[in-house]
């Protein structure tokens, strides 16, 4: 490579692009005006600094904070949360006399909590910082003067620098292309990071600069670029280049964007025009929207409810307090004289009870503030971080091939993973690997190819598990276990491999077929000089697959010059390899409208051949009457191929005579050079004239290779009740193929296709009045949607699921405000939805529509930059950390390496996290209500004066020390059923989708449980420890003793409630739960032992008063059991009579029946919802189809008793299924 040995082709001949010809159009007149003011002095660093044009360096910062802003900004973030702000206010107020407790004791927990959150924030930002550092310190070659190029860091680049970018390197900033190793100064660019498109883009420099192909040329290079200001538009660019006293216009054709990659080109020279945050990519980067999970949103509501309760009970307290206080002084006589109401502060002044009551209200707000769990947010944050570590550490989500484990980038959406209702998936790179494999072909009406497609493999695997071994024996012959050894080629058929095709009946057709594959394309061969092996670089992977297939089948394409294509092909006569070259006369390019491409070549015998390949929809109508020999068979084959998700192309050819060709060529060249508005149409017409009367050769079937395990994963997700929509930028045909391959579509499914790509709309588009045309198209879309809607409402959906396929142009209209409800209703009614040809924006809009209108949780998954909008819009964005392209990953919430890991991510981690977080929050509220209400109950006996029942430090450490760790253990480790069972019973996932574990019913249940517990604790305590002596020594109970006893009971009850409600005890849970209780006693001892000036009321209270009193211990035991009893009774009854799904699975596990496959299958079958997509559904559907066929047979033949039986079984099963729905 380094020596530039590769032949320098003038590819501009192959590609009919018209670059570098941009003239000074109107927009160029804007240059220099407002918005187009940038002036770049190329290669003149001194001049740039002189002229005060400082455009900023190339340093890119994506962190949220800087060192200076961290403290204020993150503090602000912390106290933006209502609860934290409330605690801040409390902390400040606690230094005033209204406070029921000492200030210090209240500030410490808040400090701990806020500091913990800030540390977490800091660590996260630090990680981003490291990424920035990596990015900013990448190296690129920069011109240092005197023609010397030297490595420099990206961050040090300046506007005007000349850089040299080598093959497969990223562009460090937005560059203007000056020259490349190709003489015509073109280069190939991969923009996958920007728009997700994998095909290479061609860029070409201006002619004037194209000669600068050596480092030394730049010694005296000077140029001035004037161009637009930085903006976010990726596809436009306006500027001009002043070079050698010539003003030349610059277009997007010369612009190389940061984050795209140089491909197929050894090196380029470019001049930096936008740096750092001015680059188009960075201008496009919006701040990732901060996402919050549904649970957190609901949690906020609960907190508001708790605030309401707090205010309510404070209000009650204040009113009583006010009345009591005003009563204290009656006509100058003191009632409760011991309070000295005659000489009092404002807080207790009986003369102004209203003021006293209002001030008391503040006190009460602070006192009952323990209802609101101060540590809730920080605990949840800690738990979520730990949960994401588990996700990151999961060995089963590690993909060895790319060495990528799963990576949870934001941790605050873990539980949302357990509630996904709709998945919106990208296709290329997500479902498919974006590699095509030549897998089957039909030549001369004979189907070749024994390779099994992914979907066939999935189906047969499914069949095995569903129907046992009977079918396995039948299928083993069909399934090939070995993976293809050659990338892009998975074809097995000894009939035509290794030159055996010669012996086939239609050998000449096969020869033509293979030759066509080898000739009709735009790929470029690359010969490895050492091994002589040929590899290809093609614009699209399916094209590469064809050439590779041709090579493997004996037609090796090894050289392309400007006008010839050379093959090494097998000569059927001699049986030897001979080299043949074809003179390439014309390339009639592929376009999405034409759906075909053709080449016209002259072979060595001088015959003129038109070789053509294209989609069946356009090709069959172009076949000559006498070329239809194999049409019937071919059509049948391609429908089979399409059903199994293969991408098919029809190959046909025709011989031209000289006269015809000359006529065509003349017209063609004329038309090409025509400068007129309808030039394209004229060319089109001419080309159409030549591409007709073709002779059918056959069809190819290329598998758009699905990623590993995709069909199974989709099936599992469907069983879990998750809907999957495919949003792709690809062609409709491809999208439908993939739909079949993933079992989202199947035969017998009614496809509703809404397309604007009809001849009718085509003609509409040509109308002069654009707005009228648009309106007409829109009404056509609405009509199609309405029609579809009636199908939806009238169809018998048991046997015929619906699939909606809509293309991008229609989608534009369907997403308009007045239509989108109709569209959404239709889409929800359909089993699968495929949106093709959709732009990144449309993907985001569809996602938003689903999210907003249905209110259900959406998950978007994609790998390309074109999915970024969708990922950010969805409730959860999952990025596929594929082979390359970090854009999607960077804007995703969780990155995984393969689509198949979604299954484990959702069904296992999602379910667990959802369950953990929801139980954790419920439990949090329970424990705080339990604690808070004991305080309230006590107030009733303390004339609502605001005196706390407990010591100040007991109060403030409750949430931080004695109850926090078990909750965290619950949030991190609890699991209802093991991961295996989660996957075995996917329906378990519905607990999350329907939000059963965090329903208001459940939350209120827990809150009530808290109130009941606290009532039992308080009233049992005061009744057992009334006024009589509580020890043998005659001592009576005082505030200290009652407080400590009650607190002990609360600690016991709350921790044992935890032990009761979790279902997974590892040693960690044991340590935390029992440890918390023990720690309370240790604390009581330690705190009571220090000097009474610190410990005040807690001084020696345990060792002197409580521990020697049997009644203390017996009270604790009584209250513990009594307070847990209501929950225990409820739980036993519920488990026994109304078990939830996870509890039934626990039963099954407990009874050891998980190893009994029949039994498990029974349970699973009975609980599985009728899935409408996926391999399971497909299998069911095909069984039904077979069954109905059998029924027909059995009516006619009396000897088919057994078949009838099996048919009965099949219909029985479908009955069960329909019941289940």
């Amino acid at each position, binding site marked *: 490579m380094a020596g530039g040995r590769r032949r320098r082709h003038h590819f501009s001949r192959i590609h009919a692009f018209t670059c570098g010809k941009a003239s000074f159009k109107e927009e160029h007149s804007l240059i220099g005006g407002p918005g187009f003011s940038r002036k770049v002095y190329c290669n003149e660093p001194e001049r740039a600094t002189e002229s005060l044009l400082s455009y900023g360096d190339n340093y890119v910062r994506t962190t949220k904070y800087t060192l200076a802003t961290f403290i204020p900004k993150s503090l602000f973030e912390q106290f933006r949360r209502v609860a934290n702000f409330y605690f801040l206010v409390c902390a400040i107020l606690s230094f005033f006399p209204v406070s029921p407790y000492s200030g210090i004791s209240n500030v410490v927990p808040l400090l701990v909590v806020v500091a913990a959150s800030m540390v977490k924030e800091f660590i996260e930002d630090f990680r981003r910082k490291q990424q920035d550092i990596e990015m900013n310190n990448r190296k690129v070659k920069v011109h240092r003067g005197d023609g010397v190029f030297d490595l420099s860091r990206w961050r040090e680049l300046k506007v005007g620098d000349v850089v040299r970018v080598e093959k497969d390197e990223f562009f460090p900033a937005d560059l203007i292309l000056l020259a490349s190793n190709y003489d015509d100064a073109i280069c190939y660019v991969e923009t996958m990071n920007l728009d997700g498109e994998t095909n290479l883009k061609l860029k070409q420099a201006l002619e004037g600069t194209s000669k600068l192909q050596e480092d030394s040329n730049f010694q005296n290079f000077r140029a001035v670029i004037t161009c637009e200001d930085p903006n976010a538009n990726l596809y436009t660019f306006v500027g001009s280049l002043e070079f050698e006293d010539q003003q030349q216009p610059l277009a997007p054709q010369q612009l190389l964007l940061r984050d795209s990659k140089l491909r197929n080109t050894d090196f380029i020279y470019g001049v930096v025009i936008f740096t750092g945050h001015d680059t188009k990519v960075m201008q496009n980067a919006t701040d990732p929207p901060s996402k919050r999970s549904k649970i957190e949103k609901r949690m906020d509501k609960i907190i508001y409810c708790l605030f309401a309760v707090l205010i309510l009970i404070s209000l009650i307290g204040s009113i009583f307090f006010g009345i009591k206080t005003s009563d204290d002084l009656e006509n100058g006589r*003191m009632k409760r004289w011991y309070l000295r109401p005659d000489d009092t502060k404002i807080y207790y002044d009986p003369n102004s009870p209203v003021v006293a009551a209002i001030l008391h209200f503040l006190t009460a707000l602070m006192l009952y503030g323990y209802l609101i769990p101060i540590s809730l947010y920080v605990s949840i944050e800690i738990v979520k971080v730990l949960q994401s570590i588990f996700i990151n*550490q999961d060995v089963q989500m590690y993909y060895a091939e790319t060495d990528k484990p799963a990576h949870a980038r934001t941790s605050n959406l873990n539980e949302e993973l357990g509630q996904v209702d709709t998945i919106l998936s990208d296709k290329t790179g997500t479902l498919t690997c974006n590699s095509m494999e030549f897998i089957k072909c039909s030549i001369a009406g004979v189907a070749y190819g024994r390779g099994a497609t992914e979907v066939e493999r999935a189906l047969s695997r499914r069949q095995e598990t569903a129907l046992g071994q009977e079918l396995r024996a039948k299928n083993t012959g069909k399934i090939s276990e070995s993976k293809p050894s050659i990338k892009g080629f998975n074809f097995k058929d000894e009939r035509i491999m290794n030159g055996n095709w010669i012996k086939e009946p239609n050998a000449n057709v096969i020869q033509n077929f293979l030759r066509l594959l080898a000739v009709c394309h735009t790929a470029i061969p690359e010969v490895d000089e050492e091994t002589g092996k040929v590899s290809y670089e093609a614009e699209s992977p399916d094209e590469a697959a064809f050439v590779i297939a041709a090579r493997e089948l004996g037609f090796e394409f090894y050289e392309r010059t400007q006008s010839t294509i050379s093959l090494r092909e097998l000569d059927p006569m001699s049986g030897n390899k001979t080299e043949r070259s074809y003179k390439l006369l014309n390339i009639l390019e592929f376009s999405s409208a034409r759906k075909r491409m053709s080449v016209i070549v002259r072979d060595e015998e001088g015959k003129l051949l038109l070789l053509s390949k294209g989609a069946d929809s356009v090709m069959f109508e172009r076949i000559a009457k006498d070329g239809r020999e194999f049409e019937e068979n071919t059509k049948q084959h391609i429908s089979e191929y399409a059903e199994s998700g293969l991408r098919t192309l029809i190959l046909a050819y025709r011989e031209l005579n000289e006269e015809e060709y000359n006529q065509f060529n003349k017209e063609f060249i004329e038309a090409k050079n025509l400068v007129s508005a309808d030039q394209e149409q004229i060319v089109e017409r001419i080309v159409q004239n030549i591409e007709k009367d073709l002779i059918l050769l056959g069809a190819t079937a290329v598998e758009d290779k699905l990623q590993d395990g995709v069909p199974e994963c989709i099936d599992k997700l469907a069983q879990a009740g998750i809907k999957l929509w495919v949003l792709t930028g690809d062609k409709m045909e491809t999208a439908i193929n993939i739909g079949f391959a993933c079992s989202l579509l199947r035969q017998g499914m009614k496809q509703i296709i809404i397309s604007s790509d009809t001849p009718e709309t085509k003609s509409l588009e040509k109308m002069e009045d654009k707005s009228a045309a648009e309106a007409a198209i829109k009404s056509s879309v609405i009509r199609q949607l309405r029609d579809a809607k009636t199908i939806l409402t009238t169809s018998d959906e048991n046997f015929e699921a619906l699939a909606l396929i809509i293309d991008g142009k229609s989608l534009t209209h369907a997403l308009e405000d007045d239509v989108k409800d109709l569209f959404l209703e239709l889409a929800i009614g359909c089993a699968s939805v495929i949106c093709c040809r959709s732009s990144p924006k449309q993907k985001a809009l569809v996602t938003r529509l689903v999210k907003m209108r249905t209110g259900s949780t959406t998950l978007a998954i994609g790998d390309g930059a074109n999915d970024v909008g969708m990922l950010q819009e969805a409730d959860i964005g999952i990025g596929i950390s594929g082979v390359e392209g970090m854009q999607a990953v960077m804007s995703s919430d969780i990155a995984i390496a393969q689509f198949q890991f979604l299954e484990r991510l959702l069904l296992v981690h999602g379910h667990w996290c959802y369950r953990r977080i929801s139980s954790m929050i419920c439990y949090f509220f329970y424990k705080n209500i339990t604690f808070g209400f004991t305080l309230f109950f006590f107030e009733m006996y303390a004339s609502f004066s605001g005196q706390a029942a407990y010591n100040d430090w007991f109060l403030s450490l409750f949430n931080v020390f004695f109850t926090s760790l078990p909750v965290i253990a619950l949030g991190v480790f609890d699991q209802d059923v093991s991961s295996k069972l989660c996957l075995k019973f996917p329906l378990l996932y519905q607990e999350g989708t329907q939000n*059963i574990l965090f329903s208001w019913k459940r939350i209120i249940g827990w809150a009530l449980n808290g109130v009941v517990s606290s009532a039992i604790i308080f009233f049992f305590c005061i009744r057992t420890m009334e006024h009589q002596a509580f020890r043998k020594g005659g001592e009576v109970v005082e505030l200290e003793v009652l407080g400590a006893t009650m607190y002990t009971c609360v600690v016991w009850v709350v921790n044992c409630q935890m032990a009761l409600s979790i279902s997974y005890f590892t040693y960690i849970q044991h340590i935390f739960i029992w440890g918390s209780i023990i720690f309370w006693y240790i604390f009581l001892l330690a705190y009571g032992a220090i000097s009474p000036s610190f410990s005040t009321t807690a001084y020696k209270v345990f060792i002197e008063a409580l521990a020697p009193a049997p009644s203390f211990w017996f009270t604790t035991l009584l209250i513990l059991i009594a307070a847990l009893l209501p929950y225990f009774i409820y739980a036993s009854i519920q488990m026994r009579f109304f078990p939830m799904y996870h509890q*039934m699975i626990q039963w099954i596990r407990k009874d050891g029946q998980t190893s009994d496959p029949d039994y498990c299958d029974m349970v699973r079958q009975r609980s599985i919802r009728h899935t409408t997509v996926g391999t399971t559904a497909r299998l069911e559907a095909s069984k039904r189809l077979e069954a109905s066929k059998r029924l027909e047979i059995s009516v006619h033949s009396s000897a088919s008793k057994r078949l009838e039986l099996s048919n009965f079984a099949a219909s029985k099963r479908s009955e069960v299924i329909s019941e289940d729905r």
Partner: protein
Amino acid sequence: MASSSAAGAGSTDPTAARRNTKRPKYSKFTQQELPACKPILTPRAVISAFLLVSVVFVPIGVAALIASRKVVEIVYRYESKCIPSNVTDRVAYIQSSADKTCRISLDVTKHMKSPIYVYYQLDNFYQNHRRYVKSRSDEQLRDRSEEGSTSACKPEDTANGKPIVPCGLIAWSLFNDTYSFFRGNKNLTVNKKGISWKSDREHKFGKDVFPKNFQNSSIRGGASLNESIPLSEQEDLIVWMRTAALPTFRKLYGKIEVDLNEGDTINVTLQNNYNTYSFSGRKKLVLSTTSWLGGKNDFLGIAYLTVGGLCFFLALAFTIVYFVKPRQLGDPSYLSWNRNPGGH
């Protein structure tokens, strides 16, 4: 059981050996496969739990009840009886300087074994009021040099410009009824030593802190203190300063260290000084023995018996259900989303 195969796959993989791989390290902890017991509420477990509770609770309940029943307690409410019948304004009477001696007699209905604890019981007295509880100075009580730290004690912080020791509302409102007991004509000595917590005497009330300037403010509260006795020995004060938790409370007055026999009549001469009339609080005199559980209170025993009995009943109920209607395994018809189609 659940982890065996995954464990095998993880640990034996040869790629794990490679140095620079990002493969997560396998451990039972990171893969969340720690050995754990997974208790579920099977009928057997539920029934055993209920039975266990009832087996433990019923005997405790019986024992507690017996202990409570053994305690002999004499309660005499005297706040109205000790007011002469001709007095209409009770508050004025109690605040006057008249002689408020009052004689009452108590009948011992059951043999009372020494020590017999003498309590006074006040009703509707909010010693747990926030203003009241906070109105004290622990520093001052403990440390002679902290005499002046009376900031929390308002309005009983200073009198005549000098700090009050002990300051604050609690000390100021010290209970000042006194009782003297006679069996026949013989005086029954009431031991007033050792009625307070030892930690209070030794650590919270200073041995060298003497009452000063006490009850000298404009309004007189309760009892006066002997200024020659250090606070650590003023046990009535120490007992009083431990504020009660509830508005009805008893406080230890002293101990009678002789047995009282059944049929004895105890004559009590009491000075009815303390004003509970303005807030209509009751005053009671209580003589009580103790058991190992403390004083007379049936609640603990009854509660134990109730909970134990309830658990026994529940165990029975669950057992019956268990035998009559065995559980149908994994019946999915219970599932909410199978009951209502659509599920939302």
